[in-house]
């Protein structure tokens, strides 16, 4: 019987099986940010175990609230900063160099096919786009990861998601993943790996694959995963060129992380996306999803473009395409947060920042910002936000606020009209 990619990664990293069904894995990357790590640091200090297992495998960033907004967040940042210095964690990113973790760490070339990755952040599943087993964990798992370089998981059952057909113009990875979550539900993949297949996945950029994998957790998934291919090689090439004779050689090597043709899946789900419309959420769960047409005309107060789901350069380009030469509606305020300094810089060079500013958007520094209502862009009671983020829980962006999740294109079109709008209507009129 063949194996899935997750099973192969588990086999290659198995340190211990203390009891049947409990797999303790060696971890290649322990990623840290300033919200969930300081408590781990404090606890390690309290236990007299202020050590790190390998300061080259630990990467850290201040991203959720940055620059610090008050004394409490300043303390969180300081705890992470002091700890990184104390243990000589070279890959630590502070103000001026910092960005949203799940955009920044891949961009720095830290993730490889076949890696095991943990972070105290549920959207760590994003890194599965590289063919890695990447899982969000709590602070205790993070603490043990920092101290010992291990983490425990159950044997991974995998659900294979076949995305069949051609993706229509104006419909994006975000629409696909919203649709899939709508179909399988917020509990549809709990404790499972979601393995994405299909020609449209193969045709997707790494940015789009990260969007797809980012929201696996919204269906309960431990990890979303795409099989590594030449697109993966091209993205990682600046970081791996000394390790391989050629891109083809790298691609061939990465193939060892492909699921076998006779691998056993718990479930195989086929979704035909040929007639898929842009998707938008309603209500307070990410599986409350409808085609944009059914929500068209819903008034919003704020537009938020950014986050670990859709703050990458491709996302900003898609939004800018709609916004170019247009103004956002007077009734709304627009906020855009390029996810990393490089994305910000590239967007500046491409004129995208100017387009956003001319349209009337506020451009913020790279940060998680409004997504979870911790930093800037918090909603007031009764306000509605059109957002490219990944979670629409009640009160997520501020108590009493309401969030509609959508693609950057839909968010941009919604900014222009002030009501939820199918971007394709604007794309057509622009053509």
């Amino acid at each position, binding site marked *: 019987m063949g194996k899935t990619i997750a099973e192969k990664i588990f086999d290659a990293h198995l*340190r*211990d099986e*203390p*009891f*049947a*069904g*409990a797999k*303790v894995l060696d971890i290649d990357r322990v990623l840290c940010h300033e*919200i*969930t790590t*300081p*408590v781990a640091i*404090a*606890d390690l200090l309290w*236990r007299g*175990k202020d050590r790190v297992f390998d300061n080259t495998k630990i990467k850290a960033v201040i991203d*959720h*609230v940055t620059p610090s907004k*008050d004394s*409490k*967040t300043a*303390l*969180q940042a300081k*705890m992470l900063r002091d700890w990184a210095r104390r243990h000589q964690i070279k890959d630590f990113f502070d103000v001026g160099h910092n960005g949203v973790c799940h955009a920044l760490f891949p961009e720095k070339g830290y993730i490889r096919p076949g890696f095991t990755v943990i*972070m*105290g*952040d*549920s959207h*760590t599943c994003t890194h599965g786009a590289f063919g890695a087993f990447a899982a*969000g*964990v*709590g*602070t*205790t*798992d993070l*603490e*043990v990861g920092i*101290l*010992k370089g*291990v983490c*425990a998981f159950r044997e991974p059952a995998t659900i294979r998601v076949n995305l069949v057909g051609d993706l229509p113009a104006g419909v994006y990875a975000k629409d696909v993943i919203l649709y899939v979550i709508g179909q399988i539900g*917020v*509990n549809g993949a*709990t*404790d499972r790996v979601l393995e994405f297949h299909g020609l449209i996945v193969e045709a997707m950029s790494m940015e789009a694959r990260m969007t797809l994998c980012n929201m696996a957790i919204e269906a*309960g998934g*431990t990890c979303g995963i795409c099989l590594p291919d030449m697109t993966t090689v091209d993205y990682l090439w600046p970081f791996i060129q000394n390790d391989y004779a050629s891109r083809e050689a790298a691609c061939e090597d990465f193939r060892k992380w492909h699921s076998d043709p006779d691998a056993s899946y718990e479930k195989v789900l086929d979704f035909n996306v040929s007639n898929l419309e842009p998707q938008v959420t309603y209500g307070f*769960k990410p599986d409350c999803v409808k085609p944009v047409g059914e929500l068209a005309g819903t008034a919003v107060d704020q537009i938020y473009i950014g986050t670990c789901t859709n703050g990458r350069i491709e996302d900003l380009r898609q939004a800018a395409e709609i916004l170019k030469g247009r103004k956002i509606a007077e009734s709304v305020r627009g906020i855009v947060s390029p996810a990393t300094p490089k994305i910000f810089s590239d967007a500046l060079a491409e004129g995208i920042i100017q387009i956003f500013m001319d349209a009337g958007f506020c451009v913020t520094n790279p940060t998680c910002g409004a997504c*979870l*209502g*911790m930093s800037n862009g918090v909603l007031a009671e009764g306000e509605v936000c059109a957002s490219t983020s990944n*979670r629409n*829980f*009640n*009160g*997520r962006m501020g*108590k009493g606020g309401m969030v509609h999740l959508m693609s950057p294109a839909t968010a941009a079109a919604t900014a222009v009209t002030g009501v939820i709008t199918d971007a394709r209507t604007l794309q057509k009129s622009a053509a």
Partner: protein
Amino acid sequence: MKKTFGGPAIFLDRSDINTDEIIPAKYLTEVTKEALQPYCLEDLKLEGFDPKGEALKSARVVVSRENFGCGSSREHAPWVFEVNEIHTIIAQSYARIFRQNMFNCGMLAIELPKAQLDRLFALQQAGDVEVNVDVEGQKVVARSGQGEEAFPFEISPFDKALVQAGGWVEFADARY
């Protein structure tokens, strides 16, 4: 530190109670568990439930439905229960990270099948429910005005070992 299990139960009759409802993100700026204490379930909107009420204050066990603790990886969610002396949750199922976080803290995330949960929920019709948890015997005993009922539960040897060790840090540090 080993936990104590059992006591008065509070019933949250809803599925998919998420981590934002358990502890809103604005409190994630705290760097101690104790500071979270007043904010337990603050954003949960549920008929008859008052996050500031006496029922939650005196509760030592939470009983809920499917997919409890979905959403964020924040361990602040189990911690806010921990510092309110709620060391046991009983539900039909859990989000993976929340469930793991509970055992990693040496606490209990007990799973019961729907039919048994229905009976547990029915018990509260006759008044307050007191739950006793026998971890070794893998049994929950619930008592109310209607009498007493026992519910056996499954727990993996690994999860049990974490509870007995007082959590994952102790277990891992002793072994790796």
